[in-house]
């Protein structure tokens, strides 16, 4: 069972069972953005309220597997009230966390991988999000974990123009 426990950490199941920031925000001022994982039907919808370079509020809806929904919930908690620049760094750090598997496939066992993803990301604190690191051992599920973050990136790109 150790593999499964790695994937479904307690904190992940907690976010899955009790997702944070569920709901909608009025559009505008919020920006709505959505994404799908066509393979498994995961769906993430984000409402982002960006003001003066800050993510002042965020709500999420959609449906999907525990990993995609927990990742969405954890992400929403991590970005709320943060400057957009910091969120952008977080996105990169999270993506780096999700790609550890590819770069460190050999002898990945035991390494916590927190140094991966380039030196400029070295100091980024992922906090609870690090619980999602177990996903990299299950390659087909990586897309589930990264979906919300791709949608977030798209949302930030769209609000920036």
């Amino acid at each position, binding site marked *: *069972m150790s*593999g*499964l426990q790695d*994937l*479904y950490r307690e904190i992940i*199941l907690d976010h*899955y*069972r009790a997702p944070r920031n569920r709901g909608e925000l009025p559009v505008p001022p919020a920006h709505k953005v959505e994404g799908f994982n066509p*393979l*498994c*039907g*995961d*769906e993430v919808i984000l409402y982002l309220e960006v003001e003066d370079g800050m993510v002042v509020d965020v709500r999420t809806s959609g*449906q*999907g*597997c*525990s*990993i995609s929904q927990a990742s969405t919930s954890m992400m929403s908690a991590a970005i709320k009230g943060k400057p957009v620049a910091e969120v952008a760094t977080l996105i990169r750090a999270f993506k780096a966390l999700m790609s550890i598997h590819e770069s460190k496939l050999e002898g990945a066992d035991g390494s916590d991988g927190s140094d991966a993803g380039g030196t400029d990301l070295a100091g980024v604190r992922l906090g609870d999000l690090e619980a999602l690191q177990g996903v990299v051992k*299950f390659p087909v*599920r990586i897309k*589930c974990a990264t979906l919300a973050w791709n949608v977030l990136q798209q949302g930030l790109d769209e609000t920036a123009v």
Partner: protein
Amino acid sequence: MSTTALDVARIQADFPILRREVRGRRLVYLDSASSAQKPQAVLDAMDRVYRESYANVHRGVYTIAEEATTLFEAARAKVARFVGAREAREIVFTRNATEAINLVAYSWARANLRPGDAIVLSLLEHHANVVPWHILREERGIEIRWIPLTADQRLDLSDLDRLLDGAAMLGVTAMSNVTGTIVDVARLAAAARAAGAHVLVDACQAVPQMPVDVTAWDADFVAFSSHKLLGPAGIGALWARAELLEAMPPFMGGGEMIRDVTTDGFLTNDIPWKFEAGTPAIAEAVGMGAAVDYLDAIGMDAVRAHERELTRYALDVLTDRFGDRLRVFGPAGADDRGGVVSFLFDDIHAHDVSQVADEEGICVRAGHHCAKPLMRELGVPATTRASFGVYNDRADVDALVAALTKVEDFFSI
């Protein structure tokens, strides 16, 4: 232990992969609807081709080239007999069922369908029998009409006559790969024929699971794949009436499909080779022949009885154990469905179900099963699907039930 129509223990011994373990557990393979495992007889037949008789077919006059050609054409004859074709030349080897259906779409349909012509498909169809027609619609402006479903995912035929009225083709699956629904092909084909429509049957799931007689169906085109039929991947077949094949333009051009080529043009070869441009999958064809031999020896009536029995057992124990928490799609009994059980478990996503099952060595499929129009109809993004082959038994179903109990523990709110 087994009360099924087959001596499953003996059959299991024929499948080398079933001896391996996954995560320290016995491999429980419940994804035969996606692709079936291969018996030793198929592996041996293919191995023998490469070791003893491998050469290109229909080319050389030397001994092993003749042997390879004989084996290749013998495989065609076996496949033809297996599905009730009148002649071996009515079997065109393709890469898979998808290519067989595309052959019909690119050759027959493009030669015969005009803008505004209608074809009729069902909402049960696999993408393989949907997308080629979407492509043709975009290219030709044909109309696609859909046969709706009943609440238990059978075809709702109440409006069939109107749907078929003036239609040029009916394309329908003989057995759904999601709900297992068995379609009364003979009845539909008769109705289509009466309306003047041609009939294309996607028999990808039916051919491995039940006796199929394409002549009795009275269809025009029947597509199926070897890899779901205990044979190798990389080969499949299109059965079509000889006179239709004769009249159809070639699909792809190249070697093998010609009788003559000049700087001015070409003459096509006889059927079926007219549709087999290029060097075919030779060992795979032989493997497919060995697979139908294997199934023939078991007997397709016994295979069907086994599938029905195991499906009934699965439906019974799953509802017994989980009740309303488990929502099974498709016809209620096992009589009108193949060995496929697609379900939702609470609101736990199919990916999570199959992930936990994998930890127990159980292979079940999670996703939309390449049938998104059907999934939309069901109103779900994905289902978990367990499907049965000749090598599955009640112990496999019991293992699934045990895994679902684990899922329940893991994800219960």
